[in-house]
């Protein structure tokens, strides 16, 4: 599934037809259809006591770090919420040829502004293909064509199992969340899963209240066996990006802190999760957002601060 070879009988053995062009037409332009937003972001900037902390918010760092993880990936299924801005930032920076898949039916979307919903006409105009949800879920996702499924979540555990259904008991929930949407099948069928979410004692929990999307279940071994036995094409979660750091998964299938964001501390990390985190040695520090990354977020993708407030 690399670049297809193009041949024509009119030039047998020759260099083939016109060369392939990867440039996406109709690139993004400044978003301006929602001019009266809540104004500039009011979120807390990185810990002011830390000298590395530049003028960016934790949410901005999280989005930038998540976008960078997509370098080298080809096809990304874009979940609702934070994944949307991270994936679109990636397309404008580290992954210009990334094929965006929206579960509403668009493949190879080139939104001219940040869509605020998965049902937005800007993901259609200029896309490579628009298909029914049946076809998108059946052939693209379950068929194994999605390299990265990028999800948000309400709760996650150390093995990357995700809850986006309820907080509390299912029958009598404290909070009813939106539910699976496509998250259940994305987690099962995408070749790997990336997660972006803010971390806190309520979201990084020892035990999730409801398993909406399977991660590494009770550990890597059990997960690998189930995936093999059941013929799943995906290999589960591989990256979790939060407002404090970046986690990968170790050989036991558990999350491990690989990189801490500038301004964040290990104490903050520990205070905002429900288990004792594994930490890579050496622990890296996430490079701060570049001015260009910040400009893209603030001026182009999210001028109203819908994602970064």
């Amino acid at each position, binding site marked *: 599934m690399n670049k297809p070879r193009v041949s024509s009988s009119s030039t047998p053995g020759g260099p083939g037809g016109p060369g392939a062009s990867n440039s996406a037409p109709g690139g993004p332009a400044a978003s301006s*259809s*929602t001019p*009266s937003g809540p104004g500039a972001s009011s979120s807390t900037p990185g810990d002011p006591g830390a000298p590395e902390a530049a003028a960016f918010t934790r949410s901005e760092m999280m989005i930038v770090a998540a976008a960078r993880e997509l370098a080298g990936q080809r096809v990304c299924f874009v979940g609702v919420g934070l994944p949307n801005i991270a994936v679109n930032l990636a397309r404008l920076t580290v992954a210009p040829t990334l094929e965006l898949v929206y*579960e*509403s*039916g*668009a493949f190879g979307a080139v939104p001219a502004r940040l869509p*605020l*919903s998965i*049902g*937005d*006409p800007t*993901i*259609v*105009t*200029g896309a490579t293909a*628009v*298909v*029914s*949800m*049946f076809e998108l*879920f059946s052939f693209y*996702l*379950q068929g194994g064509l999605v390299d990265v499924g990028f999800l948000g979540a309400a709760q996650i555990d150390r093995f990357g199992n995700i809850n986006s*259904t309820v907080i509390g008991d*299912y029958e009598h*929930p*404290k*909070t*009813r969340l939106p*539910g*699976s*949407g*496509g*998250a*259940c*099948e994305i987690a*099962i*069928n995408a070749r790997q899963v990336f997660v972006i979410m803010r971390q806190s004692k309520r979201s990084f929990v020892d035990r999730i209240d*409801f*398993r*909406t*999307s*399977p991660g590494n*279940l009770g550990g890597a071994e059990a997960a690998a066996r*189930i995936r093999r*036995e*059941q*013929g*799943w094409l995906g290999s589960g979660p591989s990256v979790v990006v939060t407002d404090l750091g970046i986690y990968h998964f170790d050989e036991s299938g558990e999350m491990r802190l690989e990189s801490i964001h500038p301004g964040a501390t290990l104490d903050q990390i520990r205070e905002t999760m429900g288990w004792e985190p594994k930490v890579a040695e050496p622990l890296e520090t996430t490079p701060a957002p570049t001015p260009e990354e910040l400009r893209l977020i603030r001026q182009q993708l999210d001028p109203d601060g819908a994602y970064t407030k």
Partner: protein
Amino acid sequence: MEDADPAPLELEEYSHFGMVGRYTAGASNLPFFPLRSYFETDLPKANPLIRPIRSPFGEETVYAVPPLKPDVTIVHAQRADADGNTQMWGLLGCQKEAAFAAERVIVVVEELVDEAVIRADPNRTVIPGLIVDAVVVEPFGAHPSYVQGAYDRDNHFYRDWEAISRDAATTAAWLDEWVYSVSGRAEYVEKLGAERVASLRPSGQAPSGSVDYGVYK
């Protein structure tokens, strides 16, 4: 919803693909639809209608969801002819499956076109008039949602709606003003105002181009 206000709601927990599968089974007169979702999740526990099914080939198990056959499916489209033959472009979702699965189908369109317009591009037809019970011609009828090529999603409205829908009184007040007190959709659009309507128009055209089907006599 957590407060059962005004009344407890009965919920059946599915995923998006599960719902697509349910409509597909309904449209196909199949007693179930199989998919790889749900394994090792809590959804089958929350919803006993998500059931495992063993493949008759090999050892694999997948999950099955039951067919869904709505009493009525209402779809919105760019255009239909008077027989109800309906064409859409842009995101299709599972409108086609939901229409074929339904007992009755109502199509709301931006534009009523001549049969010849439909027949000029048969691959663009999503819903045949055969299954359509009523065609409603209602320009701007999808607001606050969008119609590809016709108008934009009114994100302003969705933001406002969050506050409006937070409690029963504000919701009732909104319904009273925007639904019960207007004589029909035309008045609703008029009430929105020309400026707001104009602000939702696409900033330019993006024509599909025309293809040739050829005359074969």
